[in-house]
């Protein structure tokens, strides 16, 4: 069935309109605002060139300190979260792949269901679990004679708590993508390899991993982006504490908009954040595909 040119344009139009309205125009407008002094109440206060960017990039100023603190905390979280999120989901996928077929669907669902829960519910659960004063985790540790920890008020315990909550919450999504990728690998290759005497690790290293490499790189990139967008967990579990040490960059931007009413600074921060993310993801991309 050939689709007429007219009809295909029509079907494409809604997406194009939404793309323009909700992505391109706000992005362009955001860049425009970042070069102005712009208050939520007073509106456009005039063109200020790069002043906003200079403010946020100058350490020792209130905006610069907030920006660097947010960026530093976000980068810490990206550094500690990407590896577990990718490797644990890969391990889970390999595990689920190797169990008998009749249990596969059940376990796939079980591990994925946590992804369907909202960040608010997840945060409420883990906040309750990790409460320092008589929280569930501390009670269990106490019973084993290990003693209690001040999870949410001490570093690096707070980051560990946030990390555990995030891994539990989002691991299912990565796992499903890996499972799909693993399904694509040709069974015959494994048979041939085992005939040649290859062990499990060698099979993984020489057959499985090269076959799923594309998905692996893709997942690493989207995990980095997702970790950069850390907001809900740190807002609801630790409220940016202890001592602003889990205040992510998006939290800072949100404060700039809704508390300080300063859209110019907030837009400059958002643009700077976007630039950092693009740089990191581009580096990842070129590193992974440099041979190709």
């Amino acid at each position, binding site marked *: 069935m050939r689709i007429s040119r007219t009809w295909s344009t029509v079907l494409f139009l809604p997406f194009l309109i939404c793309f323009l309205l909700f992505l391109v125009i706000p992005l362009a407008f955001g860049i425009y605002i970042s070069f102005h002094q712009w208050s939520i109440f007073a509106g456009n206060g005039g063109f200020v060139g790069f002043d906003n960017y200079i403010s946020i990039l100058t350490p020792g100023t209130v905006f610069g300190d907030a920006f660097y603190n947010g960026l530093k905390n976000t980068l810490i979280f990206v550094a500690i979260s990407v590896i577990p999120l990718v490797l644990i989901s890969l391990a889970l996928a390999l595990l689920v792949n190797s169990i008998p077929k009749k249990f596969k669907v059940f376990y796939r669902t079980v591990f994925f269901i946590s992804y369907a829960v909202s960040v608010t519910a997840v945060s409420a659960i883990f906040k309750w679990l990790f409460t320092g004063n008589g929280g569930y985790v501390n009670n269990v540790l106490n019973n084993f004679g290990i003693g209690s920890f001040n999870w949410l*008020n001490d570093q690096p315990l707070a980051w560990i708590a946030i990390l555990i909550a995030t891994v539990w919450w989002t691991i299912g999504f990565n796992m499903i993508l890996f499972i799909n990728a693993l399904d694509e690998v040709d069974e015959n290759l494994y048979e041939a390899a085992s005939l040649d005497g290859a062990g499990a690790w060698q099979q993984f290293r020489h057959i499985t991993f090269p076959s799923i490499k594309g998905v692996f790189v893709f997942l690493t990139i989207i995990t980095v982006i997702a970790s950069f967008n850390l907001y809900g967990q740190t807002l609801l579990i630790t409220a940016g504490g202890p001592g602003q040490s889990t205040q992510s960059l998006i939290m800072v931007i949100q404060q700039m908009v809704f508390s300080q009413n300063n859209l110019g600074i907030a837009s400059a921060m958002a643009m700077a954040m976007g630039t950092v993310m693009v740089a990191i993801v581009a580096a990842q991309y070129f590193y992974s595909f440099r041979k190709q």
Partner: protein
Amino acid sequence: MKKMLLAVVLISVMILAACGGGADSETADGKTKITFINGFTGGDGDFMKKITDGFNESQDQYVVEESQEKDHYTKFKTGNYDLVVIHTDMLETFKQDGMIKDISSALETAEISMDDFHPAAQEYVTFDDGVFAVPLDIHPLTMFYNKKLASEPPATYEDLMALSKKLNGDDPNLFATGIPSAGLAEWFIMTIAAQNNIDLVEDDHMNLAQEELADALMIYHDMVFKDKISPPGLGLDGEFQAFMKQVEEGNSAVQTATSLTGPWYYAAVKEAYGEDLGIASIPQLGDQKGVYGAGHTLALPSSVNDEDKMAGIAEFLKYMYQPENLANWAESGQAPTHIPTMELVEGDVEKYPLSAQNIQQFDSFVGAPKLYQYREQVRYLVENVYPQIISEEGMTKEKLMGELEKATEQSKQVAETAPQ
């Protein structure tokens, strides 16, 4: 060609459907509509609704449509409302940003005078160029205590020490009170500043780099690490949680006999302790009595110009400030600052236990300074400096002074963002 036309029509319809319609200022039966927004999403919301519904039923010229929203400030900034509840520490900011206007004429029509209010309340709604809100209530830091653990509410630092010693002896996980590192941090800071009579304002910003303030804040440090009045490691809302916990065998929980916390926890603590719950004024930890807290006010948005609406708002205020109507607000546990209503409340302590108790704290109440973006000015102090005092045993006065200087610098920079 026809298909193209159809497509364009469909898409235009889709876009137009996404745009909302405008608000109307009249209901179907010709009454003037007044939109009222507040953040009362907790138990007290029901009591404000009672007042609003009562007003709507009492006359047929105006209808007040009340919205209770979690992020009501955001909604207010981006929407169009006729009456808004603003916390006392935000009034200066909204006034300087031109979001609210003088409410004196409405008060005159409603036959409400500033003299009808407690002086503490008059203070924060009155500015050089007019009255910019009408006071609703003050909610100060409140002490709840467990009568089983503390037969008398501790009134001084020494009382707390004695109580803690006794409780610690019974069980190492029992303490007199809890000092949290986050949540009500700002209230704790400002309370001890008030009790030590420290003036924190310089021109348009906070002057925090004062030795007296460092000394005052180290009192909390001593309470945790030196005199063991409070357990260490209490975090966000830790003072409330520790009060609610029960110390049990093999459990890692710590429990406190008293809690210096927000009065909004009344329902929860009442349910947990019932007859064993006591309510009292907070103890004197510093040189004199003093307590900090917040308060609610009703303010008039600058966008309201319609004469009909103004008249309706005046009528609503007149109704609300009849003691028998405002008493509903006291029933929620809030402490109204309207003197005739205060007298009604104090005359029936059985019915309004929390309200009557907190009214007693009005005389020593010190509110937020009238500074532009006050909450942002103290953000570094509250979120970064204060937790260090409560959590780090090695915190010294010298280190604290360094941090207070940084906090003052940040406060100055925020103050500079004020509209000129």
